[in-house]
């Protein structure tokens, strides 16, 4: 069991470093291996599932002085996150085979993409605040290189922006960790179960979380990061990066520490504000990737709302939301990538009637949009429903109302994109869906968004275990 856990974490981390070496000889083999490494993580996480469901928590621990002990542990929350992230990352990698194949620096791309996922695996399984921080920063480096993939002046500036915002947030968070260390003498989460954390530490850590999960007022780096290649944005938005923030919130404040009840009031309000502002931005943007990016910020705020509301229904809803959003938002970005890759523009005003040229992409985009909007029986619906119910259970009808308003805005701006891009008069007569790998990936994600909705009881079962550990 412990071995499986180690394989799950270190296969992508070590494997990523080998990819550039393989790539110098045989690019195709490198692509295959990059997929295998991520798939290994997914399979290993999946194989931990029965044990975790039966209540055991495999733990590997290295005892170190000064409370710096490092360790990895699998529990319901970590396995849930790991499976979601690695599954979506697998699809994104397959998509990349088509998207990235004509560009320079492919070795670095696959290196960083797999390292990124490896950092996510390490982060969700780590039981120490120090390890959490280590993987947090590794993901920031990978993100920096990936956003700057095209090496243009603008992309580098945006990559630097993303790095500065998230790393500065992380440094502030580390001050909070030091505060916790000062009080408990350890960085180990397993030793701090139920410990009360002073409010100032919570605020500092929240700063890091909000910067990573791109929540208002620290959100602006995320839409700007849209200059990256589409599989990268998809990775950032769907599989790895922004979910780190909500995961950290769930891990630290929902599952491990006890915090002042005032935060179950404040954080949902921040989330609600973030949700409405970004939904508003999404309604007026004309760049397809920026619209979807603002949509991510908006949806993430709802995840944060569910996780921070302080009851089981909200938390389970938040978790299912992570799953549903990863799949659907990953799909939306990849669809946008197909369109933008073939049309060489991101402006939705210059698109139109593309359903004829991109029939499968249009279907996949529609399916993913429906899931993000929260239309039954898509997976997004169940997640939304539970989060709303969580807010109502917590006696916060206003927040539930804001949430429903946000959901309506989501319906509006996603429909707007769909109508502008895929319906209406045809504008481009030469473009067509080129790569089978790319189209196959988006169709898979679209169908998955639907299938997960039908079989929602399976992930819900796992998610409901998370609250049980409290």
């Amino acid at each position, binding site marked *: 069991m412990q071995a499986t856990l180690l394989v799950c974490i270190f296969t992508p981390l070590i494997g990523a470093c080998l990819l550039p070496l393989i790539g110098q000889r045989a690019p195709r083999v490198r692509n295959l291996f990059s997929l295998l490494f991520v798939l290994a993580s997914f399979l290993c996480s999946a194989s931990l599932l029965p044990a975790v469901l039966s209540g055991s928590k495999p733990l590997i621990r*290295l005892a170190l*002085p000064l409370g*710096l002990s490092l360790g990895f542990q699998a529990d319901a929350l970590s396995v849930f996150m790991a499976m979601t992230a690695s599954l979506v990352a697998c699809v994104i990698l397959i998509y990349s085979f088509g998207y990235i194949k004509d560009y320079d620096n492919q070795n670095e791309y696959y290196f960083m993409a797999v390292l990124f996922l490896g950092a996510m695996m390490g982060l969700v399984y780590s039981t120490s605040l120090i390890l959490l921080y*280590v993987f947090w920063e590794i993901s920031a480096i990978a993100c920096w290189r990936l956003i700057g993939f095209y090496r243009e002046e603008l992309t580098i500036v945006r990559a630097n922006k993303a790095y*500065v915002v998230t790393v*500065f947030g992380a*440094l*502030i968070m*580390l001050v909070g960790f*030091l505060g916790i260390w000062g009080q408990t003498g350890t960085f180990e989460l397993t030793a701090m179960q139920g410990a009360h954390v002073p409010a100032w530490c919570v605020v500092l850590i929240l700063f890091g979380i909000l910067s990573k999960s791109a929540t208002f007022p620290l959100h602006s780096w995320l839409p700007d990061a849209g200059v990256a290649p589409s599989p990268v944005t998809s990775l950032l938005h769907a599989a790895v990066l922004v979910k780190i923030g909500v995961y950290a919130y769930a891990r630290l404040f929902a599952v491990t520490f006890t915090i002042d009840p005032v935060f179950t009031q404040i954080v949902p309000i921040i989330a609600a504000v973030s949700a409405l502002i970004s939904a508003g931005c999404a309604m007026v943007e004309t760049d397809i990737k920026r619209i979807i990016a603002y949509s991510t910020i908006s949806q993430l705020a709802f995840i944060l709302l569910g996780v921070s509301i302080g009851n089981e229904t909200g938390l389970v809803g938040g978790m299912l939301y992570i799953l549903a959003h990863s799949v659907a938002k990953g799909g939306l970005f990849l669809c946008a990538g197909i369109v933008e890759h073939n049309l060489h523009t991101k402006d939705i005003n210059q698109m139109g009637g593309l359903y004829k040229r991109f029939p499968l992409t249009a279907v996949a985009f529609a399916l993913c949009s429906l899931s993000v909007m929260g239309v039954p029986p898509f997976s997004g619906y169940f997640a939304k429903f539970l989060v709303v119910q969580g807010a109502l259970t917590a006696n916060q009808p206003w927040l539930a109302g804001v949430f429903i308003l946000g959901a309506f805005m989501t319906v509006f701006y996603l429909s707007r994109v769909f109508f502008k891009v895929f319906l209406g008069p045809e504008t481009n007569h030469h473009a067509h869906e080129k790569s089978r790998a790319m189209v196959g990936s988006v169709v898979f994600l679209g169908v998955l968004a639907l299938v997960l909705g039908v079989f929602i009881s399976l992930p819900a079962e796992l998610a409901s275990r998370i609250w049980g550990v409290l």
Partner: protein
Amino acid sequence: MSALAVITQLFLALPLLALVVNNLVPRETMRHTTIGMSAGVATAQLLAAIIGFVLLSASGESSFRFALAWDAAKGLGYFRVDLVTLFLLACVGLVSLIANLTAFTTIDDHRSSFTNLLMVMLLGMNGMLIVRDLFSLYVFMEVTGIASFVMIGMYKSTRDLEGAFKYMVLSMLATIFILTGLSLLFIKAGSLSFDLLRPALFEGVVDAKTLLSWVALVLLVSGYAIKSGVVPFHSWLPDAYESADSAVSIMLSGIVTKIAGVYSMLVLVRLFPGNMALRGTLLVLGLLTIITGALLALQQQSFKRIAAYSSVSQMGYILLGFAADTRLGIIAGLLYLLTHALAKTALFTNAAALEKRLGTLNVNEMGGLQAKMPVTAFSSVAALLSIAGVPPLAGFWSKLLVLIALWSAGLRGVAAAALLLSILSGAYFLRLQKKAFFGKLNPRWNSVVEITGGIQVSELLLSIATIAIGLLFPLVLLYLQHAGLV
């Protein structure tokens, strides 16, 4: 004679021997072997110091006293090494080795002189690390200093001489401060031996003599601060580093300022534990140095000057570690010194590579060089990330230990400030990468090829060391725990 007794002899004997051989054999004959010989001395010192560290650590003794071979037989012991100085002696060996590897490529004329000067410098630093009184410390510091002035001005260009002159003038000032301080301290304490200087010098009734020792302390700290190039005494340092040959810059920034300045500060900290004034001064100097150095690094156009100001800035963290005034703080400061030496040495080897291949160090003229010089680009990323304290690299752990030391010493605000200021290191890292390596290739450099030989070997060696220490740092912690040091 124990193994340790033999090893400790090497620290003075090796450089002296190399100096003699280098000057006895005709220059033309030595031309091809002289740098090889000094690299050999450096390697031997590195190994000797590591073996010595292991032996001393295993013996359970806190220090080992020795003397020159003929005096040792008479039972004298006017030198001593302990774990701290053996650690630093290993650092000296390591950085010298890298400087020699770089010098194979960068130094063409004056090879013999380079070796001569490097051996004198090594002698000076080793001397500083093994002596047992403040005056001898000063003498060997001057030996190191004189070798440095000549090395900076070795090629006698206007720029070289300007850098050397600036360093020399400020060093003279340091000399005045230190000598005056030492004499005042001598009046009060009657001795400058480490064994006889006690924190009690500053306690008791405030009379004229106690006042003298306070003045002495102020003068000594100022003198050592000039030597280590911390703010506000930093202005000589970028000029000296920039004008010197890269191999010389590696020595200066990698180790000379750290032994001449920071180690001397450490001596004071270890002599006078619990001295709040000293502690406070180090805190202020440290924070000021971190901020000013990093802000200045953000504005420089020359690769070497960015590295130089970054060096200034990082010195602040070492001082902060010492300012915690606990054993953990000193260990953290020393580890910081090592990880910073690795990273900064790597940056100066990168500068050597860029200067050799491009003929310029102006970062505005570079751009997208990663495509042409992947090894240099990679090693600069690793080095700068380590300096910025980004995990999992070596610099992260040493910074974390400094922070933990500060926090547990009750200096929470300082720890938080020091931590948040590392975003500035991140900022000049990003700026440098954007201008030099990341981004579109500047067409001017289409025919540039990656550096080869000693410089590439050093780059790889240092990057691997930075990454490996970072990944294997838990072992360091386990060792510290095993040795009962934390």
